Every structure is written in structure tokens, then in C-alpha cells.
């Protein structure tokens, strides 16, 4: 899947969970840069992403997510 398409899908997930789109989908984007994306909302976002791409993360995958670029890379490796 194209990186752009993956990012669009992730963006849709973030909007549906966080209720806003005040973020820019760049590779350096981290959870700290996005209002409301914290440890509590993180799991809901991850579950929605798993549903959206029909994939399953491992806990170790989660621990290695540093920014949007690494999230996209992990998703690409699982599709």
C-alpha cells in the first residue's frame, strides 16, 4: 500500500478517536505533538488502526514506535 494512503487512513483513525484534525501528517509527528494522544487514548488508536489495515501489532512493535514515520513503516511491514 502507498505511504500516502496509509497516512490518510491513520489520519482518519486519529480524527475519529481524538475528535479533531489539528495535526500535520509528517514523518516526525509524535504522539506528544497531538492534543489528546496519550497513553490512555493510544490503545484505542492502535485497535482502530489494526481494524483499518486488518493487521495485528505485537507489544514490542508498540514500544518501538517513535513517530509517524515508524508507525507507517511497521504497518507496511505487516500488510
Amino acid at each position, binding site marked *: 500500500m502507498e505511504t500516502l494512503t496509509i497516512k490518510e487512513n491513520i489520519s482518519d483513525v486519529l480524527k475519529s478517536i481524538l475528535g479533531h484534525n489539528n495535526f500535520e501528517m509528517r514523518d516526525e509527528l509524535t504522539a506528544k505533538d497531538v492534543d489528546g494522544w496519550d497513553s490512555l487514548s493510544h490503545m484505542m488508536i492502535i485497535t482502530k488502526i489494526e481494524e483499518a489495515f486488518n493487521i495485528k501489532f505485537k507489544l514490542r512493535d508498540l*514500544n518501538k514506535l517513535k513517530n509517524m514515520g515508524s508507525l507507517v513503516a511497521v504497518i507496511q511491514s505487516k500488510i
Partner: protein
Amino acid sequence: MGLIFNIGLLLYFKYFNFFYDGFVGILNIFGATASYSTLSILLPLGISFFSFQTLGYLIDIYDEEIESSDNLLEFSVFVSYFPKILSGPIERASKMMPQVQEKRNFSYPVFVDGLRQILWGLFAKIVIAENCASIVNPIFNDYGNQSGSVLLLGTFFYAIQLYADFSGYSNMAIGISKLFGIQLMRNFSTPFFSTNISDFWRKWHISLTTWMMDYVFTPLSFSLRNYQKKGLIISIITTFVLVGFWHGANWTFVFYGLLHGVYFIPLVYSGKMNTSEIVAKGKFLPSFAELIKMILLFILIMLTDVFFRVNNVSDAFDYIFLIFSNGLFSFPLEVLSSNYLITIVLLCFFILVEWLHREKLHDFEISRYNFLIRWSLYVFIFLLILFFGKSAETFIYFQF
């Protein structure tokens, strides 16, 4: 093996008698008469803190967050770094080990900032916490004979005492560490200026909360993620019960954690658990709605703190029941005594300084003030410590 060893040490030294009592109690319920004697175990100072720190180190290595150190001195400094060994903050290996390994250079602004934090920590502990303790102790020690209004005052001053005591220690530990060029993480970020329980725990005992979030809540909520909000609630409550239990082998702490976990449920269902903002950012005063939320949250927390203070759960329920059944609206004449009045005035100054610095890096970050204001504050606080400081009891968190 390392995890088993560290958890085993913690369980033996801190929780052996608690579980042993519970085991014998279960035997007695089923009719078996068991006679037993608990062990007289000396609790090593700071065991909860260095156990968690070592556990985090091992987990981070397993998760390939950091590489293991083969230098015993570096590892020992990381685990038993003296400013924080008794009460934290619980540091992460990924943040602290590089600071231990790299050469540190003297920085005048960092050094002076450390001294400021030590001064504020001393003021919080010796003046605020100890004056509050002088009010709190007689009330809690004889709560059965107090009116509801006095009992309520006891909970108010205890909540402040707990905060000033522990944040005072943290500020001193962080400040002392700055003198050596090592930056420890912030442990309190004006938590009473929060508008919901989630926000409160992002600002209270931050090093423990984030540790539990990373190593307990995240794995648990990950494994329960298909249950959505229910999985989230189970994970939150389990995490907070463990947070409570971490404080000590007593059902009071378990209840304390359980209640805090339960307080999250409305937030999870309302979808407001993520709201974390500095109250009245960029303004001098909060809005009326923010003020009401802060006051209600503070009342909830101070009532829950009763479980933290008393020796057993039934005492806590008795205390809270008496507040609402015994002259809650009577005027507590005690507040007219000099001890109360002095403490209230000192508290107003303490709260004002904390409020003014809620957007800063720490509670007494005054580097931008001009020379005259800075030195006036130093001298003023020093004089307050000199004239109104009380002989310090031991820190509340030393028992953990």
C-alpha cells in the same frame, strides 16, 4: 531471572507478612485453626524505588530500548544515586544512564536553579508540611471526638501536607542533583491545579505514574484492547490498585488505589480522559467552571487521602462517615487559634507561588525575575523557614 530476583526481594521485604496474614485468614475461614507468627523484617530504605528502577532497567534492555552496561560503577550510581534513593523520582535508564556515562560540565544557571529548587523544597517540607502536620495529627489521632467541620479541616490540611511533604522532597532531590549536573525528571507539576482525575495523575508522582503506565497499563491494555473501553477500565483499575499497593502492604493503600481507578470510569465513558491542559493558561485567574472543577476534584482527593493516612479501612470509613454526620456545618473555633491562622497565611503564600509558576519548569522557576525580586524572595523564604519552620518529622514517603 533479574525480574524474578527484584520482584522477589520486594515481595519478601515488603509484602511477606501481608500475604502470610491473608493466607492464615483464609485458612481460618475454612475452619482450619492456624497459629502463626509473622517475621520481624527490617524494611530496607527505598526498596520500592530501587526495585522499580532496576525492573525498568531490565525491561528496557529486553525491549531493546537501551544497551546493558558492563560498568558496575555506572549501574550502581544509576540504581542508588543518593539524592533520590529514599523517595524517588524513579528514573528511567534511557534518560539517566547517558548522563552518568557522559562527562558533565559545570553550568552556573543550572547550579543556581538547583539551589532555588532546594530552597522551595525546604520551605514546602519544613514550613508547609510540618505546620499542616501539627494540625492534622491531633485531629486524626482523636477523630472520634471531633466535629464534622474539624474532621473536614483535617482532610484538607492532610492533603496539603502529603503534597508539600513529597513534592518538597522531590524538589530537594532534583535540586541537589542539579548541583552535580544530573537532571532528574519532574515528579510533581502543581497537581492540585487539575480539573479531572486523569489530569491530576499526569501531575502527581509523575515518575511512578509513568512507570506504571509504561510497564503495567500499556501491556495490560494492549492485551485487552479488543474489549475497548471495558478493557481500558480493567487496565486502569488494575494499574491503580497496584499503584496503591506499591505504597505499602495494607488494605488502606489498596482501597486508595482502587478508588482512584474507579474515578476514571466516567472520564473513559465521556471520552474526556485525554484532556490535560494547564488551567487558565496565559491568564491570571481561572474561569468559574475551571475553579469549580478544581475545587470538586480537590475535595474528592482529600477525602480519598483519608485512606492514605489511617491504619485500617474501617477507620477510614468511620472518619468519612463522621464528617457527614457530626456537625459538618458548625463553625470550627479551632481556626481562630494562632497555629491555624499562621498555617493558613503561609498556605496562601505557598499556593500563590505555585499558581504563578504552574506553566514553568518547576514550582520556583524565577530566573526571569529581576535581581531585586529574586533576592527579596530568597531572603523572605529563608526568614519564613527560620521563623515558622518546625522540627521536621521524617518524610511520609520514606516508609515506601
